[in-house]
């Protein structure tokens, strides 16, 4: 029989991590080892996760391709499918198809500084790249991560943030929105764009990767421009509604671009070519 594009792999939920209110990370393993053997992906790609009988939802693969044998996804419980996913227990079977989309050109970045800027639930797509880079740390110069969330509670991957904070080869700056701090908060207080401006990372030989809610992205780009980042050196991902993931269902178009095929990773230079429909 020919391959059915829409047929998901069966995945077993191996571990569920509670990240923040409404946010969970699933560690998934392939039920059939043969599927695992032929599966490979790169940083930046996404998949369609499904609860049988409920539907499919699109999010990135949050674990780096350098860690083999499993994939992880992090999602916030908001819609029909993420609510159903949230109700799944360890050991449950869910569906996954992918990987889809383009990749962060991490190999092209070798020898450069990396600046990661993320807000809220947008750290997961970036986590894949961060770990990918850290797993081949010797290839890059300075690695800076600026991560902000609304409140301290909303910061995801709290354990990993601690790891990164302790690492000598990573500069981590965390921030929360004013009013979102807890009494023992020792990070920054302020919106991500403001913090970026304050930290003022050098644009020399640096690639900036920005992920976050549209409003954060909108105000961060001008700051980066002021710091001297060229549009070609700023990367982000677009999150449009998708159904198929492979350029057929017609939902994710931004102008002539299919976010699912030509994206989700775009440079700011590419974004500027696109109509404002994302």
């Amino acid at each position, binding site marked *: 029989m020919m391959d059915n594009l829409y047929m998901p792999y069966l995945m077993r939920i191996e571990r569920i991590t509670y990240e923040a209110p409404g946010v969970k990370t699933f560690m998934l393993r392939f039920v059939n080892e043969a599927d695992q053997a032929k599966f490979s992906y790169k940083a930046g790609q996404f998949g369609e996760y499904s609860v049988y009988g409920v*539907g499919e939802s699109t999010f990135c693969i949050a674990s780096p391709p350098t860690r083999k044998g499993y994939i992880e996804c992090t999602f916030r419980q908001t*819609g*029909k499918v993420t*609510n159903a996913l949230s109700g799944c227990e360890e050991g449950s079977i869910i569906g996954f198809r992918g990987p889809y989309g383009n990749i962060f050109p991490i190999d092209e970045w070798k020898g450069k500084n990396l600046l990661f800027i993320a807000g809220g639930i947008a750290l997961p797509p970036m986590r894949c790249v961060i770990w990918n880079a850290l797993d081949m740390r010797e290839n890059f110069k300075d690695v800076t991560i600026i991560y902000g969330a609304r409140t301290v509670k909303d910061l995801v991957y709290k354990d990993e943030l601690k790891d990164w904070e302790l690492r000598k080869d990573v500069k981590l700056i965390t921030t929360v929105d004013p009013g979102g701090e807890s009494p023992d908060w020792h990070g920054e207080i302020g919106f991500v764009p403001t913090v970026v401006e304050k930290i003022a990372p050098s644009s020399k030989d640096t690639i900036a990767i920005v992920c976050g809610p549209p409003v954060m992205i909108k105000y961060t780009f001008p700051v980066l421009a002021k710091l001297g980042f060229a549009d070609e050196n700023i990367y982000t991902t677009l999150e449009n509604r998708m159904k198929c993931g492979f350029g057929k269902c017609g939902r994710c178009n931004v102008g002539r671009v299919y976010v699912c095929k030509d994206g989700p990773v775009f440079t700011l230079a590419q974004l500027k070519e696109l109509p404002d429909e994302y």
Partner: protein
Amino acid sequence: MVDLIKRAKELIESSAVKVVIGYENGTGNRTRALFVEKTEDADKLIFDSRCIQNLAAYVTKREVKDKGKMAIAATLPVMRSIIQLASEFQVNDNNLLVLGITPESKLIEFENLVEVETFVHQYQIEIDARNKEMLDRLDNMTKAERWKFWIDELAPCFKCYACRAACPMCYCHRCTVDFNQPQWIPVPSHELGNLEWHIMRAIHLTGRCIDCDACYNACPLYIPINLLTKKMMLDAREHFGGYQPALKGEHLMSTYKPDDKENFIQ
């Protein structure tokens, strides 16, 4: 409609309204909605027996409403829709001026919606002979025959929702059929999804439908879905008394009488 053109020009010129909604000649001997925002466009306004689209569907459309105060060339069904919409707080005297067109095709301008209501109440909502005959035919069928009739009739429905889009009363920002938590109605078009969608539509229009047939006229597949709403209107009339849309009226399905009669509750 010389009067209408003249009046539309005055209204636009004096900035009394921002847009006049009326009819113009369309393609293939059809007519269609015209939105007059400049006086010179008013000359395109027409009115004749082909003008059956219910323009009241536009007064709740965001892109039209956002233009500012509207005037609308309103036939009897359109006026009825407007009264119903006003009673549901969708339009009011501040955002809508009614340029009535009487059944004799005379222009009649109303100061306010109360006048429109008074005018509308002179006419009973009547079901035309053809539809009456269809309803009688259905009434005389056995239950199994009716079931078969509807399953067959609704089978071609591909859920384009033209019926919903054309209906002035279907202005909800998020329709029940678009809800997915819970998923009340299956999204795909199949027997069950189609049946449930049309039952839901009919129920939600009970006591609100003013029988303009916009749904049927919009249906690209000529499915007689207006029979459902007609039947509900007739039954509501029978059970709860004569129905006319009214500005301060109680809505049939959101009210009750302690002595409502039924014969099936044990």
